[in-house]
């Protein structure tokens, strides 16, 4: 019998609330840091050195940290593989970087568009950052949806697995705008012999509700 796909592990960061959660357990917490400082603090405290981190915009920093903590804590990095998809979903695309770029071009008398910022005005760059870090050659894709929606996430997972090239996926909801930067990332696998919870719409919803209610 075909084994059900499993949620092997998940990470959650709410930069506004200054918390990091891995598999339901709060592993890091500070107080009163703004979102940018908090993300830098998480990087310095919990992650290996990766200087490219400092170049990233907020959106990518958040996605990068979620992936680093997820892959490292679960021991599933498997550098160089081609059968792991990366899919991110969010509502506002790259609006933080869009606003920054817009500010740099709005006034013809004060015109200073920067390529280093412009590249981050695409919502899929975060998938590229994670692929580069881990040398994942599989598919990378960015979806836009109005809110965290477990039914939608399950559908995205199912769609990825229609393609036999994909055996596991980093599936993520990452939303950053103004003073908010919140995201969750799941590692889900259909490989045999993996331990975890069967993936379902209900499970994806339960996990999210618990994180939201756990003040």
């Amino acid at each position, binding site marked *: 019998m075909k084994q059900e796909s499993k949620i092997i592990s998940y990470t959650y960061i709410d930069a506004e609330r200054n918390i990091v959660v891995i598999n339901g357990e709060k592993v890091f917490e500070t107080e009163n840091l703004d979102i940018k400082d908090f993300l830098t603090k998480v990087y310095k405290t919990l992650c290996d050195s990766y200087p490219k981190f400092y170049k990233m915009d907020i959106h990518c920093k958040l996605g990068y940290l979620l992936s680093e903590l997820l892959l490292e804590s679960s021991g599933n990095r498997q550098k160089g593989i*081609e059968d792991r998809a990366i899919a991110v979903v969010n509502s506002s695309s790259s609006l933080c970087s869009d606003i920054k770029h817009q500010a740099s071009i709005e006034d013809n008398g004060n015109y200073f568009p920067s390529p280093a910022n412009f590249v981050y005005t*695409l919502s899929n760059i975060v998938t590229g950052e994670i692929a580069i870090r881990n040398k994942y050659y599989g598919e*990378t894709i960015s979806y*836009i949806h109005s809110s965290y929606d477990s039914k939608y996430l399950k559908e995205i997972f199912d769609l990825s697995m229609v393609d036999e090239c994909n055996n596991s996926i980093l599936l993520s909801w990452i939303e950053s705008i103004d003073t908010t930067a919140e995201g969750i990332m799941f590692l889900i696998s259909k490989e045999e012999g993996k331990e975890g919870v069967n993936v379902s719409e209900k499970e994806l919803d339960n996990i999210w509700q618990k994180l939201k209610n756990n003040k």
Partner: protein
Amino acid sequence: MIKIIGDGIISSLGISTEENFQHILDGKSGLRLIDDESSSLDPYYSSLVEKDNLSSIVENIDKYTKLEAMSIASILNAVEDKGIDLGSKDTIFIFSSTKGNIDLLNNNNSKDLRIRLWKTAEIISKYFHNENEPMVVSNACISGVSAQILASRLLKSRKYKRAVVVGADLVSKFTVSGFQSFHSLADKECQPFDKNRVGLNIGEAAACIILQYEDEKSLNNDDIIFLDGIMKNDANHISGPSRTGEGSYRCLNHLLKNTNTEKIAFINAHGTATNYNDEMESIALERAGFSDVPVNSMKAYFGHTLGAAGVLESIISARALKEGLILPTKGYVEKGVSGNIRISDRLLKTNKNFAIKLISGFGGCNAALLFKKI
């Protein structure tokens, strides 16, 4: 099998697939010099759509933004006279764009829902009274190809019977200034794969392709089938292509599971006419064994239409395959890439039945589609 049952294109070259295709056969380009301070401090070459040209096509056009009107018009062109019910429950809309209604963004309106792509998609699918929640993909310049791949998966898993895939993007100060900051815009009409190429032109367009699941028995001669699609990442750099063409090479290699290079009429490459992109593609194509297969690029007809490119160029390629034609690469004169590839420089006839659309984008993403003529 997944069949193309309709397609439509709104671009500077015309407001139907037919018009666009005819103009390409006539060797016309939609590119011209734009001197307009509202989109750029310096003049630039681009291909633009006039919203006014769509007012006789789109009902209550004043209710819609330019991007929405273009998208709706491309769908109307795709269903024209075909009696396809787009409001039915077994039809899903998939919208793909890099920046959507980005022309609405200014420094005070970041809360405006209409700059959210999911809202734009909702407005478009509501026009056709479709109640299903549309799916939205924003995957840099491969968006339009990613959307077709997702459509094919939805149809294969029988969740829907047909998928309306739309790709659309605008030329605005936002994108023009960004590409200018990268120094990637050419100061003339672009010249894909040419020795004297100096960069790309951006263009705007909306294109729609309607895919439907069909039994093999119900297919007719000359039907065009979406046979396979694949996405791979370079895992190399967020804004520069891999020197070895890694992602594109892996995509091309994958497609050879369903065909072989001798059966392929042509490859429609991304061919943006930037130094790096065209060089990368030539290497990927040679590595994957495609040195003898004609390669073309459509960027000198339309410019680089960003999220629309994957749909627009698939439609033109499918049409060429149907007619048994290999289109020339406008702007190309002399080979200027190191990979051993054969660039199509004139209109040729073919009796081969397969064609490939190849594409890549920022974030290291690459994708390829395989179309087959029955």
